[in-house]
């Protein structure tokens, strides 16, 4: 699985299981944590078997991100638009969480395909909520209008205490990510990965993809941004998004990919390190075999004799 998937498998599994076993009386109370500090808590009690309560906790926003009362800008409208009557927002959210939804399974459409589509949408709650401000900006781009913040960098949250910046303009939107990693090895690996992004964009097959640049110092688009956001130990990545990347069906996918870019790079850096460990272990085994060959036969015989095969050898 190279790309990060938008619907959360945990939620999808629970929703499907609940649908299949609607008559059986099983209480569900599960919590889980996803990458970048997103927590889910899902509850079903047998008193109302058709009602699921889903609570979502979002990553802590840094100071410069657009201030909101617990939820990103435009999240509530996005939820209403995406789910319709099936989902109801409970206010105030449960303790420790930022958003609580009541999902009414009775109101799901009866058509199998539509039902699955809505369940998939519910499992993608993270994309809907966290991606709401980005979706609004990109929708403006696809309609070639600009909101009040044209030309100024807008800070959006994608990780706890970190934000990325979008500079909306009439004909394009520039997205800048300050990339920060904790481990020094991660930094070097990520830097080489990010430079590959720039290289890959240059190949002819990807001419229609957004233009991609990497630089060690903050790019000029970030001139209006606060100082604390401008330190990044693995450089700054800039994507230039055109209207054709966000028209129609592509909008959702573009929002998800841009939202989880840092998580994507970080995931592959970790995979790379894991792969290196496997290789190194295999190499160590080869070398130890080579060393064993160096041992004289007398030594090997001594080792064999002291083992459980002593009796066998003795009989011969």
């Amino acid at each position: 699985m190279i790309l990060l998937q938008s619907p959360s498998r945990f939620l999808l599994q629970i929703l499907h299981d609940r649908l299949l076993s609607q008559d059986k009386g099983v209480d569900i109370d599960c919590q889980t944590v996803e990458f970048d500090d997103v927590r889910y808590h899902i509850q079903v009690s047998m008193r109302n078997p058709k009602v699921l309560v889903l609570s979502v906790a979002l990553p802590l926003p840094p100071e410069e991100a657009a201030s909101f009362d617990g939820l990103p800008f435009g999240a509530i409208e996005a939820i209403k638009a995406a789910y319709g009557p099936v989902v109801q927002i409970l206010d105030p959210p449960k303790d420790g969480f930022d958003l609580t939804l009541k999902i009414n399974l009775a109101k799901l459409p009866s058509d199998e395909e539509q039902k699955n589509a809505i369940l998939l949408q519910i499992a993608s709650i993270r994309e809907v909520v966290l991606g709401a401000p980005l979706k609004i900006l990109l929708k403006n781009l696809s309609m070639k209008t600009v909101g009040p913040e044209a030309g100024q960098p807008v800070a959006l949250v994608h990780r706890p205490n970190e934000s990325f910046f979008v500079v909306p303009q009439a004909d394009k939107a520039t997205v800048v990510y300050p990339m920060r990693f904790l481990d020094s090895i991660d930094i070097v690996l990520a830097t080489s990965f990010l430079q590959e992004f720039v290289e890959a964009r240059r190949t002819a097959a990807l001419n229609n993809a957004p233009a991609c640049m990497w630089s060690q110092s903050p790019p000029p688009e970030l001139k209006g941004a606060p100082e604390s956001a401008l330190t990044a130990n693995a450089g700054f990545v800039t994507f230039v998004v055109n209207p054709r990347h966000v028209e129609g069906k592509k909008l959702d996918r573009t929002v998800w990919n841009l939202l989880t870019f840092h998580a994507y790079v970080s995931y592959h850096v970790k995979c790379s390190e894991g792969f290196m460990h496997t290789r190194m272990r295999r190499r160590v085994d080869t070398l130890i075999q080579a060393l064993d060959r160096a041992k004289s036969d007398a030594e090997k015989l001594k080792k064999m004799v002291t083992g459980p095969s002593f009796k066998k050898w003795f009989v011969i």
Partner: protein
Amino acid sequence: MLTGTWQPVRINSLLPDSHFASSVYLRPSLFQIASPLHSTSVPPSSRSPRLNWSEQIDTGSSVVNLLSISKDSTMANTIRLYLTCIRNTLEAAMCLQNFPCQEVERHNKPEVELNTSPELIMNPDLICRNEAEKCLIETPINSIRISMKVKQADELENILAKKFLRFLSMRAEAFQVLRRKPVQGYDISFLITNYHCEEMHKHKLIDFIVQFMEDIDKEISELKLSVNTRGRLVATEFLKQFI
């Protein structure tokens, strides 16, 4: 006088009272010398402008200078000759015998680690492939310490080498002849005692060490290649999403 391609030169004086004092020890066939070389200077050749001389590293110990040639020619050959030179040095140096400790009764320690009595410790040998890669071989009477410095061209190779060599050093127990910490200034060290020579065949042990060195180089370049390939793939998949 030098003809043809460069060759490694090794000056061998392992015993302090110079049994093989200052004799030239040359393996490769293309190399021809007119006069015996002394350990201090070798006259530069005027016929091949591409050859550049590496500086003499240390005047105290006997030193090997490897002629390094420009990168566009036979880079692959240099590793062969470097390893052959190391192998020959080890074959000559690996004559270890049991030697009980002089200082403490009934103790038997590898003298290279103690470094107390100068008469027990021979002159160390330093074999350099270029400024970045070198190999130090120290041979007292009952042990050999081989320290290597691995080539690290850029930041990525730097951390890959460090990671891999730390990984190996942690498993020194399994390797028996590996030292847990490398000698100061080097990346990895072996410690071979007379007991190891008694248990294992000498030529196979040398085979192992040379193979080890080759494997490290190969492994680091393969790791770097895998990182770059993965980066390319990841980037292509991501950007394809937008088309």
